């Protein structure tokens, strides 16, 4: 009964999404205010319906209703209840439902904020978001319905993939999807700009906070994904250039380019059509990411052949959304007036132009490496894979200059900056960065290397360059920093921290595979690891062999690690749980390989210096984005509303 209710709610959501799309667009064409006014209530209704559908599926999981095929495939009565709820988005069908629910949350937010927008803009944005929702709802209802029943119902479910039974999974996909879907708002604003033909400072002021919010979610989502892979995969790595990771990274790169380019468009009124194009691209890559990960095409293009309906629909949907927007772009974008002044390289807009080029080229390089194997396979060119060395080789030369630019970001002013001014403000940070960067690996780890030191110099340079501006402002005037400046500073410091983490962990991280019998002692990276043996542990839905390791530093015991080998009862799958001693300056990471003759095990020991800095830096950047969101300009919108509505109203709202 409950699943049928959910299914019915999905159908109603589709009807409301159709209304949300068609009626406001008709209203725009005919200048009818009554039709425009339909958009917001339709968005609210769609949110309620999707909320009901989602709750119905969650309820089916909670109550172990195995007559629902999706529940039977992804859950189990022995699964703890929080993993049963998280299992809602553990596979294809449910994650589509989550995607749509989050899209309707963003629509709801736009509808709630729409009083500060001109009515035609708000309605058009909601209509575009509604059309995306229509596409997803049709896809879900006709090819991947999570509520499909199966009879007879199995007595027990097949269990959630053990890889996904981790607290990281509970929050990682929702965050990532909030980011993906959030770019839909920027996309909808871009399409609205193309339809109405207006990209003015009001448009950018509305678009910026939405884009920044989406970017914050995506940053947190990607970071959590990396952290989850480190904890759960047992390989001690934080980024594998795996197609699934790349799928979330490409929209992040273009989204980052977009928030920078929006800044230029707001402040200087230039790069208008470029900004619009970036907004379209960011969303296109978000769509691509969603489908790549969930449609099975990454496992094999042949997965498409087993279910042609899904594959064909996805390609068609993609072609309509992206092809349609690019067509609209080609027709309408030339209308946006271009700036007449040339852009000086030594100006903030010049730097941001470079930033955009680097980011977009980096995204293109990742796209090439991710899609080429799929295309080659689909076209019968042979079975090829592209290894991580490709990504590292291309990515590092592209991002190193980018980080160098970050250091100068705050100091270099809009329009034009004299070289002397830059020099006088940046010589000290530069010298300090070089000095500290060379010393840091040596002081912290007692080692040094050219590449790692260069990375540290870059990271410290980014941090000091950002802080120089703050110090100057605070010392000069004793005023509160504007939130957007504070946000930018935090985000750029985060970049620096991240770069330092990456440099040191790649430069000096090490690992060792050893054979250890109970009582064995192994020295590695200055620590002694003692293996005491394994014991049998019964979990709620698994049994485990847990190893006991003691870690000594100069004879003092500093940690007790308990890596485990779990065998999940329902699926019989074996999973490695790593034992990690977390520290600000290093992680020690032990994972059990396989049981060898006698009581011996093959053991993997990792030393990961500064790895926490990677995630700390990324979170710092996300916090910077949050702080920028609270900037006064966005809150003052209410006051700005009156004149801007007057200005807009001449266009179409006077029916």
């Amino acid at each position, binding site marked *: 009964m409950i699943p049928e209710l959910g299914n019915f709610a999905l159908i109603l959501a589709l009807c409301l999404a159709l209304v949300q799309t068609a009626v406001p667009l008709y209203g725009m064409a005919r200048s009818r205010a009554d039709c425009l006014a339909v958009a917001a209530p339709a968005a609210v209704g769609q949110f309620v319906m999707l909320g009901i559908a989602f709750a119905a599926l969650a309820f089916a999981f909670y109550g172990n209703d195995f007559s629902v095929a999706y529940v039977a495939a992804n859950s189990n009565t022995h699964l703890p209840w929080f993993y049963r709820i998280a299992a809602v988005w553990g596979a294809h069908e449910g994650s589509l439902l989550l995607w749509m629910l989050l899209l309707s949350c963003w629509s709801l937010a736009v509808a709630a904020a729409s009083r500060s927008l001109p009515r035609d803009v708000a309605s058009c944005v909601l209509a575009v978001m509604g059309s995306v929702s229509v596409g997803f709802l049709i896809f879900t209802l006709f090819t991947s319905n999570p509520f499909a029943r199966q009879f007879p119902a199995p007595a027990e479910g097949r269990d959630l993939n053990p890889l996904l039974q981790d607290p990281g999974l509970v929050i990682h996909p929702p965050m990532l999807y909030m980011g993906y879907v959030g770019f839909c708002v920027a996309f909808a604003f871009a399409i609205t700009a193309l339809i109405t033909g207006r990209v003015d400072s009001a448009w950018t002021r509305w678009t910026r906070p939405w884009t920044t919010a989406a970017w914050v979610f995506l940053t947190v989502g990607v970071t959590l994904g990396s952290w989850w892979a480190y904890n759960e995969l047992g390989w001690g790595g934080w980024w594998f250039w795996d197609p699934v990771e790349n799928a979330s990274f490409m929209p992040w790169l273009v989204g980052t380019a977009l928030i920078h380019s929006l800044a230029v468009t707001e402040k200087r009124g230039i790069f208008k059509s470029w900004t619009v194009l970036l907004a379209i691209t960011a969303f296109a890559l978000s769509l691509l990411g969603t489908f790549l990960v969930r449609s099975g095409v990454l496992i094999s293009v042949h997965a498409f052949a087993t279910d042609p309906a899904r594959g064909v629909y996805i390609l068609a949907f993609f072609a309509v959304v992206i092809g349609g927007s690019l067509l609209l772009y080609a027709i309408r974008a030339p209308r946006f007036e271009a700036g007449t002044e040339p852009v000086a390289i030594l100006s903030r807009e010049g730097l941001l132009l470079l930033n955009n080029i680097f980011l977009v080229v980096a995204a293109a390089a990742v796209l090439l490496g991710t899609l080429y194997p799929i295309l080659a396979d689909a076209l019968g060119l042979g079975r*090829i894979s592209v290894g991580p060395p490709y990504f590292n080789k291309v990515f590092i030369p592209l991002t190193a200059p980018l980080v160098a630019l970050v250091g100068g970001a705050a100091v270099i002013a809009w329009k034009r900056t004299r070289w002397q001014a830059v020099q006088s403000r940046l010589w000290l940070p530069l010298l300090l960065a070089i000095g500290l960067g060379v010393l840091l690996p040596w002081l912290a780890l007692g080692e040094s290397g050219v590449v790692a030191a260069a990375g540290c110099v870059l990271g410290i340079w980014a941090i000091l360059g950002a802080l120089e501006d703050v110090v100057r402002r605070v010392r000069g005037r004793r005023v509160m920093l504007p939130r957007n400046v504070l946000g930018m500073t935090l985000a750029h410091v985060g970049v620096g921290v991240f770069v330092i983490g990456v440099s040191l962990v790649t430069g000096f991280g090490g690992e060792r595979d050893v054979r250890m019998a109970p009582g064995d002692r192994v020295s590695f990276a200055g620590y002694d690891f003692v293996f005491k043996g394994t014991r049998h542990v019964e979990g709620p839905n698994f049994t485990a062999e847990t190893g006991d390791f003691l870690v000594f530093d100069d004879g003092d015991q500093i940690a007790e690690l308990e890596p485990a080998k779990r065998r999940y009862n329902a699926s019989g799958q074996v999973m490695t749980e790593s034992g990690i001693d977390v520290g600000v300056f290093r992680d020690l990471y032990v994972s059990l390989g396989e049981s060898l003759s006698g009581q011996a095990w093959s053991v993997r020991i990792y030393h990961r210096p500064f790895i926490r800095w990677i995630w700390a830096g990324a979170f710092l950047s996300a916090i910077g984005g949050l702080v920028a969101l609270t900037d006064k300009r966005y809150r003052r919108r209410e006051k700005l509303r009156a004149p801007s509505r007057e200005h807009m109203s001449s266009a179409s709202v006077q029916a």
Partner: protein
Amino acid sequence: MTRTQRRRLLLVGGLFVGLAAAAALALTAFSQNLLYFYQPSEIVAGKVPTDTRFRIGGLVENGSVQRASDDLVVRFSLADCEDSVPVRFRGTLPDLFREGQGIVAYGKIDHDGRFIADEVLAKHDENYMSPDVADAMKDDQGVSCMPTNMRASR
């Protein structure tokens, strides 16, 4: 040419050179890091160059896995329908590695025709077999030569 024009030309030229450099960099790195997939019979037939890294896929032959007693070296043979290749690997094998299982390995072939693996992958699902391996386990007529309980379920 005015000053503005000259500056713009410089800018556009600079961008062009930069992009060309990036493209050259990317494409070189790309072509150097393409990993091709081969199956055991192709190696035995000598179709595979000796000093490039590539991927190999097949079934771990029953009874072939040998562990050294004092270090982490493992030897096993990897087979497709026609032939098998000896493989040597030092390190920790993945959780799902076992005899009769389809696996994919990365590495190079040495002069004796042995495959020296530096990475061994087994998929995280017992029913699932890498499509590359599933294809490798078919003979000329496209009929699978796997034991029936091992057929790929995808």
